[in-house]
């Protein structure tokens, strides 16, 4: 009996050890699985999608507001539209947990840079893959904001292989707005504009002759050396119409704030009436 009791003690201890060991292992496994669970439930971020949505709808809202306000002259209608839009956006986003706010400056006159501001991109492609241009107008050119001949603002038209088909340089030559037009081989002529309005598709500039039947790209170079408005409309190679027009720009500041742990704040100059393609 004594021997049996002593043998029983070892079985007992071994059983306890095995038991404790299995429990400890199980608890550790539990921790690993639980930790993987909790950490992988980290938030799925959609803020970039929300941000691009905000940029897109706000740009559209400005364009619609501007269209109904007689080129920005009726600021009551413009502001009323933007008030309505802003209020609905604030309410809609607050239901999704975002605090949205929109502020804008007054309408400003624009330079011929990419974003319309004086410090924007000087050289940029306005529209590419153009099949035909129906209207190409420049207006509100001002001698005081035009550079002289060494700082001229150039409109360049290149075909699809990059060679220049037509170009016009606009500069201030001793107090007169001078346009110097040339095609890929020769100079077509120098013209002046007293009113600050240029209709590029007029016969004298020979724009349509030099670009007929080709696929071309319109570029602005040295855009910061001139202020003014422009409008280009026509057809693209794929058959769609295009229409870019810049009369004013408005600096719009958008803020998105979520739960206090994410904030996006950006200022975008919006080209009005129609900037993007």
């Amino acid at each position: 009996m004594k021997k049996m009791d002593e043998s029983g003690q070892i079985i007992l201890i071994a059983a306890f050890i095995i038991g404790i060991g299995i429990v400890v292992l199980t608890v550790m496994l539990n921790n690993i699985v639980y930790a993987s669970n909790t950490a992988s439930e980290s938030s799925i971020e959609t803020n970039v999608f929300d941000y691009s949505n905000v940029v897109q709808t706000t740009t559209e809202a400005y364009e619609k507001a501007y269209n109904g306000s007689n080129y920005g002259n009726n600021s009551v209608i413009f502001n009323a539209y933007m008030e309505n839009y802003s209020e609905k956006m604030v309410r809609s986003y607050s239901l999704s947990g975002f605090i949205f706010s929109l502020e804008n400056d007054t309408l400003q006159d624009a330079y011929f840079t990419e974003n319309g501001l004086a410090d924007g991109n000087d050289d940029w492609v306005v529209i590419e893959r153009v099949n035909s241009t129906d209207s190409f107008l420049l207006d509100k050119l001002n001698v005081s904001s035009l550079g002289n001949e060494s700082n001229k603002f150039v409109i360049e038209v290149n075909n699809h292989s990059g060679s220049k088909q037509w170009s016009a340089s606009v500069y201030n030559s001793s107090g007169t707005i001078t346009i110097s037009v040339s095609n890929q081989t020769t100079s077509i002529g120098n013209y002046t504009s007293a009113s600050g309005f240029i209709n590029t598709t007029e016969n004298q500039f020979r724009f349509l002759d030099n670009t007929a039947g080709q696929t071309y790209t319109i570029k602005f170079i040295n855009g910061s050396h001139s202020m003014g408005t422009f409008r280009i409309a026509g057809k693209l190679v794929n058959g769609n119409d295009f229409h870019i027009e810049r009369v004013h720009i408005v600096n719009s500041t958008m803020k998105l704030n979520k739960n206090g742990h994410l904030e996006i704040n950006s200022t975008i100059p919006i080209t009005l009436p129609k900037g993007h393609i």
Partner: protein
Amino acid sequence: MALIIVIGVIVFTVQATSLTPLTSSTANAHIEAQLQILGQDMLTVLDHSKSGQNSSLKEDILNWDGEKYTWNSTEYVSQNNNILLNSSTSDLLKAVIVPKGIAHNVEFCIINDGGTTTTLPYIYNGEPSDNAVIVSRRVLLSNSDIQDIPLFRSETGIYDADTSTDFYNLIDVKMTLWRM
């Protein structure tokens, strides 16, 4: 005696093993993330406006006749037996979501003046399960977008928030996705 204790320890450890969380909850988090990204991508594609025209999503809202469409394994059919045609949303859903067996609802939400929301179902396939994912996209409607405003108002129920300006309303398109 020893046998009793050994058996007791074994029973205790077996019971302790079943305290670990089941792995199905891990799977849920990954599936939800996948559905969210899928839904966001679809709405982004639908809301892309090319050449400055209205996006496909906006066209679908403007062409909506106000009825609630349900999937009947071949088409989206409303209660009056109208088939949903000419809708990029339904085409995209048919091509991408239906073959994967993911159930979906598409609803348009507008906020009333008092601050409450009105939810108008466009495509409705039942109440979502617990692991459903909602993705949303805001679309702006202006008076100049709509051809016949009284008809649009009476068919869809989306009203003009401000009759004195071109602003019509802001619609929150909510797509709910869940695995059946």
